């Protein structure tokens, strides 16, 4: 244990109500002692549930642990408590960037810039977003506070052609399997004009999934199992075969939602088996 962490731990032990947990949690996080940092952040949050900095610290640790869904909730809460909290705004911008929602990422950075116009990390983040395009593989966070480790490796070596073999004619078209960061694991999608929209849709899916989970959780509906939607020109079903993967099934408007749901359940089971086998 380093001296600074030892000293901060002693201070916190002397006065558990003090805000020194913020510095201790951050110090532990920077040292990569994430489990200890998480405990400190959670204990601090229990004592100071209306402190935006406590939610911000917790979110940073969660981000380092790749728990982006909960990190989003915490940064979101921090901004509700303190709308001008630049750390939380930059954190949210980073998570939106990560799922490919560039417009939201820019909007949050713009809000942060209005609060701290001289912060060079915001300009750097803007440059990265505008230069990097969609869904980066391992972006450095726009916030100096948020420094997630690189995401899990992409499954490029997997035999993606076999994911949905035998399902609905054996075609991968209209079926898309992505990881939690919006990277394609298998399948492909084309729009009405025949253009390949696989990567674009994959980038959006993580955002939809994040929001679906958040909605179900905050409304007390428990864990979400699926999302079905009828569109003007086609129907879709979104499910998660594993906690880290998302599956999208897209079919023509003529396929009723009930049948689409059955097809999606079969595809989900196949994707789950494939993921268990290949990873």
């Amino acid at each position, binding site marked *: 244990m380093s001296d600074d962490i030892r000293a901060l731990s002693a201070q916190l032990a002397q006065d558990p109500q003090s805000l020194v947990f913020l510095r201790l949690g951050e110090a532990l996080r920077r040292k990569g002692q994430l489990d200890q940092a998480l405990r400190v952040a959670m204990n601090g949050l229990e004592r100071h549930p209306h402190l935006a900095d406590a939610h911000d610290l917790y979110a940073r640790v969660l981000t380092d642990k790749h728990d982006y869904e909960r990190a989003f909730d915490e940064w979101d809460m921090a901004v509700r408590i303190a709308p001008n909290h630049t750390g939380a705004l930059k954190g949210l911008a980073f998570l939106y960037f990560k799922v490919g*929602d560039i417009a939201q990422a820019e909007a949050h950075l713009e809000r942060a810039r209005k609060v701290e116009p001289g912060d060079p990390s915001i300009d750097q983040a803007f440059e990265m977003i505008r230069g990097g395009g969609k869904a980066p593989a391992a972006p450095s966070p726009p916030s100096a506070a948020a420094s997630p480790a690189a995401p899990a490796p992409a499954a490029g070596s997997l035999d993606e052609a076999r994911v949905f073999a035998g399902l609905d004619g054996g075609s991968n078209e209209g079926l898309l399997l992505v990881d939690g960061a919006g990277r394609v694991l298998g399948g492909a*999608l*084309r*729009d*009405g*004009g025949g253009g390949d*929209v696989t990567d*674009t*849709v994959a980038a*959006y*899916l993580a*955002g*939809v999934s994040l*929001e*679906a989970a*958040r*909605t*179900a959780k*905050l*409304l*007390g*509906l*428990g*864990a*979400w*199992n*699926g*999302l*079905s*939607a*009828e*569109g*003007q*020109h*086609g*129907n*879709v079903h979104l499910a998660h075969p594993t906690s880290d993967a998302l599956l*999208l099934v*897209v079919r023509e*408007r003529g396929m009723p*939602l009930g049948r689409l749901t059955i097809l999606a359940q079969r595809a989900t089971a196949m994707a789950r088996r494939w993921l268990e086998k290949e990873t």
Partner: protein
Amino acid sequence: MSKALDLITRVRGVRGAMLVSAEDGLVVAEQLMEGIKGSAVAALAASLAGKLRRAMEAAGTGTSVFWHLQADQGALLVVPASGEGGILVVAVAEPDVNIGLVRLELLRAAEAVV
């Protein structure tokens, strides 16, 4: 508006129905059972609707005319009543609700409020 929501909440298993501004996630009208936070439902439904719309447009299916979030302990069902920036007709239901029936009532309500 109240009559339109009546038809939805009459369906067995529906715990509440609301009209929500899609643009800002604010409640326009509501009929909810006790314990359901209308403002939270409105904000979350509008946010999810926006994200889903972008994903569906990218996938070439056009904007959604009905969507349904299934969860362990319930469901959220939504029909956008009009185009972008319009009204969402929203129902919160038990997990074993008759989805087809709620969908029909939501579509009827959507026609009534346009």
